[in-house]
């Protein structure tokens, strides 16, 4: 048994070595052959070689639910792009297991293997850890869900198509204040998650800006599911609304339990609430919840309608914002590649920076001077089991 095992181990190690060498050489080949620059422009652009695009998503681990949505969005976009002539994409989706070490390793591998651009990673923390690798190597990165401050400040190769919480939340609060005449609110957020904590900071700043008083701030853990005691505590100060920064896993029980306790003031949520599961799982209780979002799922622009239809047909489910942003991401990459008709890294980087007023699923889309996304955000309210624009 012992000899057998060690033989297997040796064989495995040898296989790894061979495979790694193989992929390494492959990477050099693509960059050396120069087949990434083509002729023509826009729709007529023709590039001979396949354009290697890497995507680092959290398909397993804590953030798997977002990663899976993103994977669907990317694959849908890739399938549509494959039908266009001229440019073919070789999209490799890899799983970082929600582990920063894996994200760093994957970025390193994509950089070494000659990827023209890297999409991802799913979480902002991982972006701050891994993006510098691409920046140092001069590989453009397009974040499709990073909302934390400072991600694009890493360098001039880092872009994102995801609106930050700082861009969405002030609009949400402004609209809600106007609609409901808010004077004092209770703020609740999970303080052990980077995304919800930065959302809280944005809420807090926006409330101050609007002159709304925060009578109480209550924190909980992202793994909590019983909020009755906290909600009772919130109820005591008799607020005009409850503002919540939480992930969808906490949002559903929180909303349900609030309604059970007879709290019928508006509940205002951040990006984490912008998920079809809110209506699917909380049902009746979700009615009247206000959600600020980067993507207006009910928007009737043709790109969005086409996306909704294609997504439903492919996956038999409604897309969420992560899928929409991922889908948009790959479409933007195609836009950038075709703009200069080149998939060289520097060329994509330059073209991405110049994207302006492109019609997308997210609306008219531009990249601003800080390489952040610029498009209309939307304030939604749940009505009859679906998101409607709050007016």
């Amino acid at each position, binding site marked *: 048994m012992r000899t057998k095992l060690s033989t297997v181990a040796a064989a495995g190690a040898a296989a790894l070595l061979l495979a790694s060498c193989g992929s390494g050489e492959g990477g050099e080949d693509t960059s050396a052959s120069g087949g990434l620059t083509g002729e023509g422009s826009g729709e007529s652009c023709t590039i001979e070689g396949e354009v290697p695009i890497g995507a680092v998503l959290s398909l397993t681990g804590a953030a798997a639910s977002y990663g899976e949505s993103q994977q669907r969005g990317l694959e849908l976009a890739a399938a549509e792009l494959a039908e266009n002539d001229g440019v073919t994409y070789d999209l490799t989706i890899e799983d970082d297991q929600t582990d920063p070490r894996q994200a760093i390793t994957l970025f390193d591998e994509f950089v070494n293997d000659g990827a023209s651009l890297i999409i991802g990673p799913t979480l902002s*923390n991982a972006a701050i850890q891994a993006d510098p690798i691409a920046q140092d190597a001069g590989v453009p990165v397009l974040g499709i869900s990073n909302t*934390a401050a400072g991600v694009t400040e890493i360098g001039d190769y880092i872009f994102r198509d995801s609106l930050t919480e700082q861009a969405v939340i002030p609009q949400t609060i402004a609209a809600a204040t106007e609609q409901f005449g808010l004077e004092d609110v209770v703020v609740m957020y999970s303080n052990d*998650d980077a995304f919800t904590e930065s959302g809280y900071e944005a809420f807090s700043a926006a409330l101050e800006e609007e002159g709304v008083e925060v009578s109480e701030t209550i924190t909980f853990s992202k793994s909590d599911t019983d909020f009755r005691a906290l909600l009772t505590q919130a109820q005591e100060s008799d607020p005009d609304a409850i503002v919540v920064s939480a992930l969808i896993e906490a949002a559903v029980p929180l909303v349900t339990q609030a309604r059970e306790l007879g709290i019928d003031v508006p509940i205002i949520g951040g990006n984490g609430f912008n998920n079809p599961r809110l209506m699917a799982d909380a049902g009746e209780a979700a009615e009247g919840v206000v959600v600020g979002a980067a993507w207006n799922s009910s928007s009737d622009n043709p790109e969005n309608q086409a996306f909704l239809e294609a997504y439903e047909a492919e996956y038999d489910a409604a897309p969420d914002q992560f899928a929409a942003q991922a889908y948009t991401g790959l479409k933007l990459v195609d836009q950038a590649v075709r703009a200069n008709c080149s998939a060289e890294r520097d060329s994509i980087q330059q073209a991405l920076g110049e994207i302006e007023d492109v019609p997308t699923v997210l609306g008219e889309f531009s990249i601003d001077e800080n390489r952040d996304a610029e498009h209309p955000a939307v304030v939604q309210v749940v009505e009859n089991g679906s998101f409607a624009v709050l007016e």
Partner: protein
Amino acid sequence: MLDEYATTLTFIALGAIFAYSFYAVLIAGQLSLGQAGFAALSAFAGAYLAPSPTDVGDVPALLIAVAIGMSVGALAAVVLGLPTMHLRGVFLAIATLGFAEAVRVVLTNQEWTGGAQGLGVPRVLTVGMAWLALGLVAYWFWRMGRSRYGRALEAIREDELAARAMGIDVGRHRLAAFVTAGAVAGLYGVLYAYYVRLIAPDDFDFVAAVEGLVTAVVGGSTMFLGPILGSGFQTIVPEIQRAVGVEAGWIRPFLASLLLLVVILFLPGGLASLIRRRTRLPAGAADDARADAGEGPGRGLAGRHHPAAGEPVVSLSGLGKEYGGVHAVRGVDLEIRAGEVVGLIGPNGAGKTTLVNMISGLVPPSSGTATVLGSTIGRTPVHRIAAAGVSRTFQHSKLFNRLSALENVLVGAHLVSRPTFLRRLLWLPSARRDERAALRQAVRCLDRVGLADRAAARAEALSYGDQRRLEIARALASDPSLLILDEPAAGMNHVEAARLSELITSLARDGLTILFIEHNVGMVLQTCTRVVVLNFGEVIASGAPGEIAADPAVIEAYLGSDEDDAGSAGSGATAAGRDAAPPDAVTNLTPGAAGTLDTPDTTPRNPT
């Protein structure tokens, strides 16, 4: 070539360093999950307090952070270790896990750590630095392996009680191992922080702790290369899957877990068990030992002061032990003087083992006073009694099962050998001399019980009789003033018992004071200068073997139940008859059944 794998190699090194922090305590038999907490505290403290690399340069900044981190880790381990070191097994794991979780929650709620969003740290660490750090850590544990300190930790892992009886201060050693774990975890935390650029409290959560533990166990927790192998395995498995083209998603973690299961099932000792471990017996050690034989403690060993013949070694007065109303031992007055060979006999349940457990410090008496070699029994911990010169064997063999016979005896020599670990780190020749001296002592003791040719065998692989003899060799290695043997002949056949009898006689000739419990009355009468008979916890007779054998009270209490036994004991009363009687004539064990004895009952008879 190397550049392409720099990231993977760096993570192998980092994972291995973290696994070493688990290895550091696993080697002493402690299961702790607190290392994640130590790493978190150290990473944040190091990254926050150390000066910026732009001010002082990369390497100095990293070194300062490492110094801060290791100190914080070690300090946290002391603070956590003091109240928890008496916990064992899963209780220690839960307590330390609680600590790690508390650290995570506190760090999440602090302003200066950046909360859940984390603390940005410049990347300074290179693959070379990571492997240099790993090399130093591995070197530390490699040199620890064959030092006195390393053997003591392994002995504690194998059998804590026996380790105490060999004079090892278990509490101090366990704490030392824990502090080492804290410092190594601190090193990991800082290096990790200076590589990944951003640390969040969640990077050091329960999952991270379990991963470190798994890495150490998969690699092997009894061999110093284990953590490196484990980390290599854990880091390379995802790489292989990618290279082979397994689709990203749930299937990969599933396959990785399956592979992990296979390794644990087929290599319970971890990957390191693929590496053959040899027990080195330096050429000439055995010859040296024979040349030294009979000269008392060898060169290079701490000499012991033995009481002169006739001086009191053990004085018991009114000694009693009560277990919930049951008097196991009652009002025993006994004095043993240097040079005596005292046999303690009595029917089963008479309190013999309880009495020797009190004398060797394992069980505190409920009443009365006792002084053994100048130490007061009751308040003095076991290892101090051992240090005073008491050495013992156990009724049911308590060997260090996974250590070789030689290593068992080397642990026995703990008290007479000098600490060698720190000198071994520096390769000082004096450490080598001291190790050789301890080795000579061990070989001499093995030789004396006739086990020299079995030195390399694992203790658990020895026959029952050999195990009993090995226990005696181990007890002898500490050059004791008082040797306590608890039923040494149990399970031995005629020939073995006769040889044991000779051994005891020869030890007595060397001036060793011996107290031994034995059911083989023939052997006791033949070997002892004095016999003490216990019944129902009380001394019913004490005197020369001849007197005892003729004492009607003894015959009544101990032997009277069986006429044959009484007859044999009676014949032992005459000098001529004593030789005629076979050594195991009077015994409640059937010698012929020695080979089919049940495995010894390992449940402790006394709570200790």
